[in-house]
């Protein structure tokens, strides 16, 4: 890890009219670090994620990102063109529902290749070779490259979505409940895969989840949210083993034991 963070978030708030989406969120994210944002539904996790990924504009507060050239840029002051460029090169966004993040009517190969073509790659053979490589990295058979994601299972779709996001070598990936809706064995394999990729590529990630086990497996640090506010944050193991805020204690004690 370097001595400078990748993302600096300061007093970020989002209000929907008089309702609070998220309020006064402040944190830094370092390169290669995975931060989990946990909390019950309606606690503002997804609002926070959408604000950070500039899919939503916050009501107040700032977020700065350190670009590849080392320059700090304030996200909400960038032009839309720059934000969209960042979104498809240096960032990734993994949706809970893969259909939101994939093009369901074009082949798996084209789904992976789209970002490459968007940044100007114009060599079919090279694009295809990269797609084959990435499909194998997310454990999708090479002979499925020309199939549409419609023909894929939920777990495969999610893995394809991950490949599609990582193909341009992003430095920061946003994940919204990446394992939601998958059965536990598929979840376990996906988590294993994600953990491997994040470590290999040195990715920084912000993972929104309501599943504390996912947070425990993937993240080094976590923030617990309730009613739009961060009630506790710290190292994942510390928060889960020694929860201090009453709400975190409730959350941790609510995990079903098998």
């Amino acid at each position, binding site marked *: 890890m370097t001595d400078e963070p990748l993302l600096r978030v300061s007093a970020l708030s989002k209000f929907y009219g008089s309702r609070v989406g998220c309020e006064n969120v402040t944190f830094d994210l370092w390169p290669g670090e995975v931060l989990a944002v946990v909390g019950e539904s309606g606690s503002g996790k997804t609002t926070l994620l959408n604000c950070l990924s500039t899919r939503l504009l916050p009501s107040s507060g700032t977020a700065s990102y350190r670009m590849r050239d080392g320059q700090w840029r304030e996200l909400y002051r960038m032009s839309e063109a720059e934000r969209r460029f960042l979104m498809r090169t240096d960032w990734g966004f993994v949706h809970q529902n893969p259909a939101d993040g994939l*093009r369901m009517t074009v082949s798996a190969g084209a789904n992976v290749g*789209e970002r490459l073509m968007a940044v100007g790659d114009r060599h079919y053979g090279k694009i295809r070779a990269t797609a084959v490589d990435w499909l194998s990295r997310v454990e999708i058979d090479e002979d499925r*490259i020309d199939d549409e994601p419609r023909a894929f299972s939920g777990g495969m779709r999610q893995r394809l979505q991950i490949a599609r996001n990582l193909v341009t070598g992003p430095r920061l990936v946003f994940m919204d409940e990446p394992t939601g809706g998958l059965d536990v064995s598929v979840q376990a394999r996906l988590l294993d895969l994600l953990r491997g990729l994040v470590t290999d590529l040195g990715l920084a990630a912000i993972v929104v989840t309501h599943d504390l086990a996912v947070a425990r497996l993937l993240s080094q640090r976590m923030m617990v949210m309730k009613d739009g506010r961060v009630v506790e944050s710290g190292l994942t193991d510390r928060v889960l083993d020694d929860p201090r805020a009453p709400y975190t204690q409730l959350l941790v004690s609510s995990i079903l034991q098998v």
Partner: protein
Amino acid sequence: MTAQPTEIATYNFAYLDEQTKRMIRRAILKGIAIPGYQVPFASREMPMPYGWGTGGVQVTASIIGPDDVLKVIDQGADDTTNAVSIRAFFKKVAKVVVTTDTATATIIQTRHRIPEHPLTAGQVLVFQVPIPEPLRFLEPRETETRKMHALEEYGLMHVKLYEDIARHGRIATTYAYPVKVEGRYVMDPSPTPKFDNPKMHRSPALQLFGAGREKRIYAVPPFTDVVSLDFEDHPFEVQTFDQPCALCGAENVYLDEVILDDHGGHMFVCSDTDHCEKRRADGHHGHLAPETHLASEKTEPAE
């Protein structure tokens, strides 16, 4: 008992009222100023159904003057229903001279072809466009496609070509083949065969595109770069035919397949009827050419 009306007094010159023509001319000028950009315009109801060339007719009506010579083609042919009726329409409402001769026409309204005879400076080619948005079948949201044009995000267009190669081993798009105009806007050249795409590149003629139902006008000014999209290892290619035209023997022209009988008999003939007839009048003939001579050029005076 019929009293022939001397003229249709209730219609303005070229059917559209002057305010409408002015509005359309403004859209055309903007289109010319920003080559390949789709300019929205207030498309009018025309006395013909959508899909029959309402966009092209409005563009033609806005630029035509009494001294113009109009040619209308439909898939290259001057003698199909659509071409004949649009020609008759302008003969009636604008009293212009109409022709089938490509070289003498000043305005050529076309559906899905560019004439084989090279166009010259001063000529205007008016395309009828059904769907002006090249990204439409990849991205259904108009708000999003407009943003993609504005930000020059054209990666998606190559996704379509990628899909073609993945499925068919080559770029299988044969018509409405996407082009980039003057290095900026990706444009749908209307459903012309990709055979005609190279003719658009640095053409001396002004090319105007009208989409009546979709309410868009766009333009390619003379001598503008029009480059067909492709991959480095799968370059753009036009269709080739392994036999010449059965009637005039022309090679390197776009051919139509014509079914001759119920027993599988067929022939390939020039899609550009004017070009084919001229060649036959000049003494060229293919292997299925009838012996009788066809009357060539048909220029009719205004009514």
